[in-house]
C-alpha cells in the first residue's frame, strides 16, 4: 500500500500543479516530493530486510484480465533501495531547479513528478506488462523535459533519446510476449506475472533463452547504455536541464541495469552464461572507450555524461560476472552512481547558472571564486573516481573482484585458485581495471583545470541577479544529503551489502543452480548456500575449495569486509 502511495502522491501533486497558479508550482512539487520521502522512510522501516523475493509491501488489483495484466506491485531489497534513491533525488531535483527553471514552471514540475511516479512504478512492478508500461512511460516526461527545458540542441537530443529507447524496448516487449506465450503453453494460463514467467523462461532450452536474452538486451542495453548503442546518452545528458540530467544519470540509466538484473539474469540464465564474455567485452569497450573520450572533452557536462557510460560498464560487468560479489557490487553501483554522478550534474548545473557556459576553456580556477562549490566538486569527483572511503570505491572494486573471480568455468572447482562460478576472469578484470585509471585521469584533469587552474571567467560574465557568487544555502542544502550519502556509504557499506544479500543470492542462484547437463557442460555448483544466509565465513580467497564451500563462501564473504 505504501508503494502505491509513492506512485500516487507525485501524480496527485502533478494534478495540483496544473490547477494552481504558476508561482506555487515549485512549492507544491517540493512539498509533494518531501511527502514522498516521508512515505519512503515508512516503507524502508516497514521492510523486512532479511527476506528475498518481490513479495513485500504488495498491492494487487486486476487491470486487463483478458491480457493477463494485473496492477501488481511489491518490492525486494534491491528494488526498495532503488525506489529510495528515486524519491530521495525527487526533492533534490525540485529544489535544485528553483532558480534554474523560470519559464513554463508548471509544465516542468508536473512532468518531473510524473516521471518520479513512473520510475517508482518500474522498480516495484511485479507484472511484466506493468513494468513495460512504466519503463516506456518514463520516456514521455524525460522527452518533454529535455525538449522544452534543455539547451540549444535539445530537439535533436530528445528525439534521439526517445527513438533509441523506444526501438529497443519494443523488441524487449516481443521477448516478454514470447516468454508469456511459452508460459501459456506450459501451464495453460496466460499471465504476465514476473515470478511465474521467470520459472517458465528458465525452463526453456539454451537457444530459446538466447533469443529471449537478445530481445531483453535490445531493450535494456540501450537504456544502460552499453557500448554500441550508447550514442544517445552524451547528447541527451548534455542538452537536458540539470534536474533532467540528475534523474537521467541517477535513476533512468538504472532502469537498464535493473532490467538486466531483474530479467536477463533470472529469465535466461543459460544464455547469460553463454553470452557473458561477449557482453563483458562490450562493457569493457564501453568502459575504456568512453573513458578515453572523456579525456578529450572540454565540455564538463559532456565529460560527466561519457563518464556515466564508462561507469555503467562496470555495473554491467559485475552483473555478467554472475557471482554474488559481482552482482552485489553491481547493485551497490546502481545506488552509488546515482549519488555521485547525480551530484556532479547538480554541481555543473550550479556553475552553469552562474557562468552560462560549461566549457573548461572559458571557465577555470573556480577554487578562489567559489570555495564552497569547489569543495563539493572535489568531494564528488573523488567519490566518482573511486577514492577509498567514498561510495564509488566499494561498488567499483566489488564489480572488479567479482569479474576477477568469475571463472574461467572449467566445470571443476578449484582449477583456478580463488575462482568462483562464472564465465569471465582475471583478463576481463585487468582490462576493465584500466578504466579506473583512465577515470582518475580524466576526472582529476578536469578538476585540476576547473578548480585549481588559472582563474578565468567568460568575458561577458556578470553576477547572477538572485544567486550569490558562491553557493546559496538552498544549494548547499541540496548537496549535503548526497555528500552525506557518499560518505556513509563509503565508510560503512556493510548494512547495504547485508540488505541486498538475500535478493542478490536468489538471482545469482538462478544462474548458478543451472543443471546444464543437456548442453554437455558439467554442472557442479549447487544452491546449497540457501540455508546459511547471514552467516559469515570470512574464508580465504587464495584457497582451493570444494564445490559447495566455494559457493558458500562467495555468497557470504564480502559482507563486512573492508577490502
Amino acid at each position, binding site marked *: 500500500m505504501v508503494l502505491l502511495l509513492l506512485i500516487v502522491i507525485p501524480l496527485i501533486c502533478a494534478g495540483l500543479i496544473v490547477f494552481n497558479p504558476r508561482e506555487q508550482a515549485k512549492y507544491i512539487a517540493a512539498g509533494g516530493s518531501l511527502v514522498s520521502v516521508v512515505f519512503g522512510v515508512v516503507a524502508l522501516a516497514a521492510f523486512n530486510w532479511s527476506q528475498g523475493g518481490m513479495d513485500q509491501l504488495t498491492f494487487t488489483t486486476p487491470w486487463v484480465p*483478458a*491480457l493477463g495484466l494485473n496492477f501488481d506491485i511489491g518490492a525486494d531489497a534491491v528494488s526498495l533501495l532503488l525506489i529510495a534513491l528515486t524519491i530521495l533525488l525527487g526533492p533534490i531535483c525540485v529544489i535544485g531547479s528553483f532558480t534554474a527553471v523560470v519559464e513554463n514552471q508548471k509544465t516542468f514540475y508536473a512532468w518531473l513528478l510524473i516521471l518520479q511516479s513512473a520510475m517508482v512504478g518500474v522498480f516495484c512492478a511485479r507484472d511484466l506488462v506493468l513494468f513495460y508500461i512504466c519503463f516506456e512511460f518514463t520516456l*514521455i516526461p524525460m522527452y518533454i523535459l529535455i*525538449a*522544452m527545458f534543455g539547451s540549444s540542441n535539445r530537439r535533436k537530443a530528445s528525439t534521439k533519446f526517445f527513438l533509441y529507447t523506444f526501438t529497443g524496448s519494443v523488441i524487449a516487449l*516481443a521477448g516478454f510476449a*514470447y516468454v508469456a506465450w511459452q508460459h501459456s503453453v*506450459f501451464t495453460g494460463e496466460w499471465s504476465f506475472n514476473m515470478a511465474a514467467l521467470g520459472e517458465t523462461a528458465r525452463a526453456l532450452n539454451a537457444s530459446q533463452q538466447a533469443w529471449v536474452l537478445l530481445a531483453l538486451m535490445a531493450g535494456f542495453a540501450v537504456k544502460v547504455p552499453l557500448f554500441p548503442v550508447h550514442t544517445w546518452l552524451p547528447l541527451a545528458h548534455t542538452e537536458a536541464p540539470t534536474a533532467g540530467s540528475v534523474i537521467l544519470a541517477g535513476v533512468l540509466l538504472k532502469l537498464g541495469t535493473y532490467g538486466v538484473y531483474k530479467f536477463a539474469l533470472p529469465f535466461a540464465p543459460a544464455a547469460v552464461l553463454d553470452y557473458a564474455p561477449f557482453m563483458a567485452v562490450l562493457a569493457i569497450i564501453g568502459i575504456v572507450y568512453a573513458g578515453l573520450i572523456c579525456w578529450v572533452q572540454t565540455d564538463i557536462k559532456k565529460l560527466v555524461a561519457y563518464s556515466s557510460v564508462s561507469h555503467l560498464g562496470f555495473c554491467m560487468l559485475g552483473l555478467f560476472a554472475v557471482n554474488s560479489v559481482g552482482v552485489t557490487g553491481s547493485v551497490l553501483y546502481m545506488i552509488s552512481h546515482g549519488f555521485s554522478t547525480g551530484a556532479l550534474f547538480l554541481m555543473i548545473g550550479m556553475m552553469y547558472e552562474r557562468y552560462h557556459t560549461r566549457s573548461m576553456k572559458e571557465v577555470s580556477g573556480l577554487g578562489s571564486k567559489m570555495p564552497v562549490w569547489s569543495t563539493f566538486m572535489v568531494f564528488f569527483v573523488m567519490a566518482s573516481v573511486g577514492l577509498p572511503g567514498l561510495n564509488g570505491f566499494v561498488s567499483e572494486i566489488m564489480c572488479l573482484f567479482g569479474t576477477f573471480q568469475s571463472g574461467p568455468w572449467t566445470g571443476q572447482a578449484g582449477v583456478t585458485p580463488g575462482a568462483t562460478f562464472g564465465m569471465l576472469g582475471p583478463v576481463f578484470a585487468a582490462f576493465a581495471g584500466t578504466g579506473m585509471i583512465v577515470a582518475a585521469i580524466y576526472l582529476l584533469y578536469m578538476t585540476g583545470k576547473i578548480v585549481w587552474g588559472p582563474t578565468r571567467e567568460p568575458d561577458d560574465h556578470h553576477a547572477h541577479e538572485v544567486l550569490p557568487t558562491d553557493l546559496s544555502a538552498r544549494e548547499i542544502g541540496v548537496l549535503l544529503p548526497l555528500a552525506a550519502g557518499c560518505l556513509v556509504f563509503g565508510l560503512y557499506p556493510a548494512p547495504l551489502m547485508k540488505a541486498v544479500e538475500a535478493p542478490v543470492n536468489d538471482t545469482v542462484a*538462478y544462474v548458478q543452480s543451472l543443471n546444464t547437463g543437456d548442453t554437455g557442460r558439467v554442472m557442479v555448483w549447487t544452491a546449497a548456500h*540457501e540455508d546459511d544466509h547471514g552467516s559469515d565465513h570470512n574464508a580465504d580467497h587464495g584457497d582451493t575449495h570444494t564445490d559447495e564451500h566455494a559457493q558458500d563462501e562467495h555468497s557470504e564473504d564480502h559482507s563486512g569486509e573492508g577490502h
Partner: protein
Amino acid sequence: MAETLAYLWPEVTLFLATCVVMVVGLSPSAAVRRLCPLICGISLAAAGIFAIGTTPTGPEHTRSLMPSMLPYAKAIIAAVGILLVMLLAGTVDREEEANIEKGRTFDPLRLNSGEFYSFFLFSLTGLMLTASADTLIWLFLALELTSLPTYVMVTISTARSNAREAGVKYFFLGALGAAIFLYGFTLIYGGTGSVHLTEIRHAITTQMAGEGLNPITLAGILLAIIGIGFKIAAVPMHYYTADVYQGAATPVTAMLAFVPKTAGFLALMLVCSTIGWHYGESGAGLPDAVRLLLWVMAVMSMTLGNVLALLQTSMKRMLAYSSIAHSGYMLVGLIAGPGDTFTQSGLSAVLFYLLSYGVMSTGAFAVIASLERNPQRTHTGELAYDEADSIEAIRGLARTKPLLGWSLVICALSLLGFPLTIGFFGKLPLFTAGISAGEIGLVVILGLNSAIAAFYYLRLVAYPLFDEAGDEARAFNLTPMRTRPAVGALGAAGVVLMTVFAGPIARLAHNAVHPDSQGHVADDASNNTDEPVAAK
C-alpha cells in the same frame, strides 16, 4: 427470411434514417436542415443499442459464419460512427447555408447536405451488412454499398479541385478492386458450387480432406483477398490512399480511415474462415498459399506504409500512409487466427484494434479538421475552405490552442502504441497472438515497424508541444464548427479512458469471435518436449 431479418434491425434502423435524412436535408427551413446530423447520430445510437439488444445469439439461426461477432462489430461501428457524424457535421454546403442566411432564396438544387448525410448512413449500413453477410453475393453488395457512397462523399466534400481528382481516382481504383474480388468470388463459386459461406466452407473442408483443395477455389480466395485489400488499403492495393486521403475534406478522410478498413477486415475474416480456422476454434490454420499472401501483404503494408509516412510533410498523407501501416499490423492478427484466450487470438486482437484505431485516428483527424484559414475561390468560383494539411500548421498548437494540441499529442501517442493509451493495449494482443501462432518473425517486423513509426508520430507530438507557432501556424484559426474540436477531445479522452476499461472491451472482442470460449483452456503440455523445470 424472418430469421435473417432478426439480425438486421440495426441496418433497418439506419436505412430508415437514411430516407428521413434525405428528405429533411431538403427542407426550406434551415433549422430543420440542421437536424440532419442529429438524426444520423440518434439513428446510429439506436442501431448500436439494437445490435446489442436484438441480435439473436447462437449460430443456429443464421448461415453467417460468425454470428456472435455481430453485436460487437455493429456496436463499435455505431460508436465510431457517432464520432464521425459529429466530425462530418457541417462539412458541405457551408457557403450556400451562409448565403441563405444572408438572404439568398432557398434552392434545393444547390444543396448537398441531405445526400451527404444519407450517403454517410448508407455507407455505415453497408458496413454493418458486411458483418452480417452469409453469402458471397450479399458480401459483395454490402462491400459496394460501403464504398460507393464514399466515392461521392469524397468528391462533394469540398470545392477544391483535388477533391474531384481524388474522387475519380478513388472510384476507378475502387472499381478495379471490386472487379478483382468479384472475380475471386465467382471463382470460389465455381470451385465449390455454392455462394453460401457455410456451404463453401463445408465444400472446402471436403475438398481438403479428399484430393486436396481445388485450384480454382484457391485462386478465387487469393483474388478475393487481394481485391478486399483495396478496402483496407493494404499493399499492393494501396496506391490510391495518400492522394484520396489528401484530396478529400479532412472529416471525410477520417471516415475513409475507419469505414472501408473495418468493412475490409470483416470481409477478410469471413473469407478466410471459409478456408482456414473453424469457427471459434484454433487448430487448422490457413493454407500455405493464403498465409503467404497475407504475410507478404502484412509485411509490405507495415514497412512501406511506415517508411513512406516518414517522408511526408503533409499530415493527411502521413496519416494515410500510417493507415496503410495499421492495416499491416491488423493483418498480423488475421494471420494468427483464432485462439483460446484473448491474448492468443488474432481475430479478437483485430476486432479490438479496429475499435481503438477508429477512436484514435478519428481523434487525430478531428484535430486537423479543426484548423482552417481564409477560404479561397476555386476556378469554378466556389468557396473552398483552406484546411490544415502541412505539418507546419500544428507548430506550437499546444500553446496557442491547448485542448487541440494535447488531443493531437495523445492521439499520436496512441497511434504509436505508447503505454497508457488504447493503442498499446491494441498492439499488445497482436504481439502475443502473433507469437502464439508461431509467427515470431512477423512479430519482430511488427515491433521494428512500431519503432519506425515513432519517427513520424513523434513529429505530431513535438511540433505542437515544443515549437513556437510560425507564420503559417498562426494563419490557421479554430473552425467555427465546434463539434470538430469536440471530437478531437473526445477521441483523446477515449484513448486514455479506454485503457481503464480495456479488460471488458477485450472480453467482448474475444467473445465476439469465440462464443464458446470458457476463459482459459488448458493446452496439452505433453506435446512440448520441455517440461517446466522448477529452477531454484
